[in-house]
């Protein structure tokens, strides 16, 4: 059972997204827990037909999960908190995909989000049939293309024009995990899934149905995990299984698709062999949805990239962005499972220098921010300390492979494709990238590490667990500063550093008067952020003979602020209809079917100004929701400690 704030937020989100009826059903279902359609209709006090229709729309978006234990058994419905919350992430997800994969992919994602899940064949049909609308959609999107994406991103086409392109986009998104394959298990509640797993193992390996004793229990656990992994592999997209070669139909039972294919290729006998063989099509039976876990990973990368850029400058930020991109492809899950052996070296997700160099934008001026390292225009180093030393190292290494600095400088100006010189410039680039990575490594936040400590290997990894702990703390600090001011922040940080402290110690460490500290601590306590532990000196437990040790529990503060964020999001979203009511008459007028698309002629100057004002108000509110969602990504999805949605 999720908390009240989340329930409220989800209800608001669903009302926004699917409408009143669905919101009513969702709320009823979340209040009463798992139940059948008939019970649900009774609780919600609506006719069964309405309840069923509402449930169908909710299942379409996977906001409600269902399970039927066996044939003819009643079907039970359960809400899915995680999927319901994900409705708030739509803005961020579309922006992320558009930024990385271009406008066309953004359109595809938007369509899939709109539909919840969709069969590839049906999607393709819808696209093929709407060439005119496709053309229209491109008209006013031109200025929306982002100018800041990395060079490796595809040139952003406005819209999907060919079947091959459509399949290409889907394949890209599936390979990177933004889209996921949907199987029947995606619609089952986690607890039922677990039960089914255990049942399968018992039937398979424990015919006497007895799992007793520690040895058997361990065997059982191992078997369950094994089966779970197998199911997970089944459920993930793989190029080998899910790509129907040459667009052939796999299941003969499907009577939709063959007609379509026949129509498409009917004109020329060998049509698809020529222009589509290069990009094998996806099986048309494949069902896809947007994988939000994966998107959270992307949002985390974006956040880290921004942070690095802010603290270390553009060039270093770009290098870090490239590293993140390489690493992200290799990380499948956002949270690492707790290691079985805490002493064992953690295997960090890592990327080779060459990979980083490949995915880094050629345009980035690597030499500009580190003095002397790349330096087309920069002079010989005369600085001391770290930078000077590093530069010395680089210079030496250049000397070792026989490159004089002057020579490479001249090559920088006129790039040639000559083998040797291109090798040289590549080597130089890699060196510079490494210098930037070292800079990142030295930063107190520890942005990245060499994959094997101590060695000079060219693999660089990122320890996300440590990094995220730092980010979470920074997020909490931001919130505390904004709410209570700098004094409170100072006290909180000290409590976090030093553990449990007495009031007087707090005062002396924070260099504040005891009285001031007292008021700060009391305020924090009443907000639930700090707390005091009582240590009585005698049996009487008299307050004057008791020591109070103050402490700050990061995890507790984290979940507290998470809940408050949910609440704030719900309030912000609820504000939109209130604001809308202020502009109700003009909005209704603008939405009239005869006025729509003819606003220029049919609305007066004042009315247009009024509408514009409304658009701005709504934009600000929605922006704020998107920002708060980023906080949720950090506090909930990226944190190994948060378990609020693991039920």
């Amino acid at each position: 059972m999720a908390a009240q704030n989340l329930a409220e937020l989800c209800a608001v989100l669903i009302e926004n997204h699917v409408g009143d009826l669905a919101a009513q059903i969702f709320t009823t279902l979340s209040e009463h827990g798992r139940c059948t359609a008939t019970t649900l209709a009774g609780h919600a006090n609506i006719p069964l037909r309405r309840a069923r229709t509402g449930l169908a729309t909710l299942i379409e978006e996977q906001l409600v999960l269902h399970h039927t234990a066996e044939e003819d058994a009643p079907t039970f419905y359960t809400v899915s908190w995680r999927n319901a919350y994900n409705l708030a992430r739509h803005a961020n997800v579309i922006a992320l995909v558009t930024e990385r994969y271009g406008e066309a992919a953004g359109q595809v994602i938007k369509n899939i989000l709109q539909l919840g899940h969709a069969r590839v064949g049906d999607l393709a049909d819808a696209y093929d049939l709407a060439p005119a609308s496709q053309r229209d959609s491109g008209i006013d999107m031109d200025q929306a293309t982002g100018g800041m994406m990395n060079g490796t991103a595809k040139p952003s086409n406005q819209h999907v024009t060919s079947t091959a392109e459509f399949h290409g986009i889907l394949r890209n998104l599936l390979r990177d995990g933004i889209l996921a394959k949907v199987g029947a298990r995606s619609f089952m509640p986690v607890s039922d899934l677990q039960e089914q797993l255990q049942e399968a193992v018992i039937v398979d390996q424990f015919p006497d149905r007895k799992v007793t004793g520690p040895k058997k229990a361990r065997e059982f656990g191992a078997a369950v995990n094994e089966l779970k992994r197998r199911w997970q592999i089944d459920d993930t997209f793989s190029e080998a299984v899910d790509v129907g070669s040459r667009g052939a139909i796999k299941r003969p039972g499907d009577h939709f698709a063959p007609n379509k294919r026949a129509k498409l290729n009917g004109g020329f006998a060998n049509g698809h062999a020529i222009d589509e063989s290069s990009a094998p099509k996806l099986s048309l039976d494949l069902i896809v949805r947007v994988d939000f876990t994966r998107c959270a990973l992307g949002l985390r990368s974006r956040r880290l990239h921004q942070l690095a850029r802010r603290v270390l400058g553009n060039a270093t930020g770009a290098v870090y962005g490239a590293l993140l991109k390489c690493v992200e492809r290799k990380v499948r899950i956002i949270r690492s499972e707790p290691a079985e052996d805490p002493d064992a070296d953690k295997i960090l997700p890592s990327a080779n220098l060459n990979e980083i160099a490949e995915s880094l934008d050629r345009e980035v001026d690597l030499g500009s921010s580190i003095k002397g390292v790349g330096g087309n225009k920069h002079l010989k180093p005369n600085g001391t300390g770290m930078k000077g030393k590093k530069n010395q190292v680089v210079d030496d290494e250049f000397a070792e492979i026989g490159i004089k600095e002057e020579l490479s400088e001249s090559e920088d100006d006129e790039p040639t494709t000559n083998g040797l010189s291109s090798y040289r410039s590549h080597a130089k680039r890699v060196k510079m990238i490494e210098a930037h990575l070292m800079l990142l490594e030295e930063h107190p936040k520890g942005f990245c590490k060499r994959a094997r400590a101590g060695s000079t290997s060219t693999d660089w990894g990122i320890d996300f667990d440590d990094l995220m702990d730092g980010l979470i703390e920074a997020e909490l600090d931001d919130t505390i500063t904004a709410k209570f001011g700098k004094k409170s922040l100072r006290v909180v940080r000290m409590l976090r550093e030093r553990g449990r402290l007495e009031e007087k110690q707090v005062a002396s460490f924070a260099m504040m008067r005891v009285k001031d500290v007292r008021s700060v601590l009391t305020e924090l306590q009443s907000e639930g952020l700090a707390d005091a532990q009582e240590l009585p000196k005698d049996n009487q437990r008299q307050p004057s003979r008791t020591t109070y040790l103050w402490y700050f529990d990061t995890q507790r503060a984290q979940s507290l602020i998470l809940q408050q964020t949910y609440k704030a999001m719900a309030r912000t979203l609820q504000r939109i209809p209130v604001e809308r009511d202020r502009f109700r008459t003009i909005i209704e007028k603008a939405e009239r079917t005869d006025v729509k698309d003819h606003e220029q002629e049919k609305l007066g100057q004042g009315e247009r100004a009024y509408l514009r004002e409304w658009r701005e108000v709504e934009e600000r509110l929605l922006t704020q929701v998107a920002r708060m969602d980023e906080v949720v990504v950090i506090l909930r999805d990226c944190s190994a400690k948060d378990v609020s949605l693991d039920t």
Partner: protein
Amino acid sequence: MPRGGGGGFGRGGAAAKGTMRGMQLPWEYDPDLEYKPTPNEGLFPKSVPPIVKPPTASEKRAVEHYRNLRARIHEGPMYTTLDDLKRDDEGVDDAKAKAAYNPFEDAPTYSQRYKRPRNTLPKLSDRPYVKEMFPEELWSTIDEEYDEDLSSAVPTIKKKKFLDISEPKKYDALRRFDEEEAKKAALEAGKAGKEAGGEGAEAPEESEEEEEEAVDDDFEEDEDGAGADDYNAEQYFEDGDEGYDDAGAGDAGEDDGY
């Protein structure tokens, strides 16, 4: 944790600081601590709400995408709105409906013809579904032609259904207000840079004409379709109607604006 006493000291006299009836107070006594009641600020004390930072360009883009998606969903067949009356039951009985009648807005008017229609029940039948993903009891809900007894028999040839993927432009018509504003801002900047008053006055008109032309282009097909259908009375009426509206609103707008 309370520290220091509130009222109770006075009775013991001057000697009794930090004690009560000769007994040591159970908490640490702080002679400097004073009780300062905060002056009453009224029921709603003044507070300055924090103002958020204005959205950045990328955030604006994200919101734009989201609005676009939302507009599509709201126009789609799945989105439902219920009147408050209809919340508890599908049918509204007459008495209730009469009680809720608003003489100012509910009187049927001509312009209501143009009101955006609202769904009260999602239309599920217009698009294909992956039936296996739904529980069996809902199959008849999502597919009206589905018949439990015939399901094993030969599948009948049905009308093909398509997913509704519509062009975003039509749906988010309000979007052009943002653009218009940006354009206007650019124009004003240009105006300031130039100097000539005449040129400045002409420029916006030009842009408006361009926009109208663009709109015309978009709906060319629609108009053609309407033109062919001479016997459509509604269409005929709409055309005449629009002509009047155009003249009136257009004139007024131009006079006001420029």
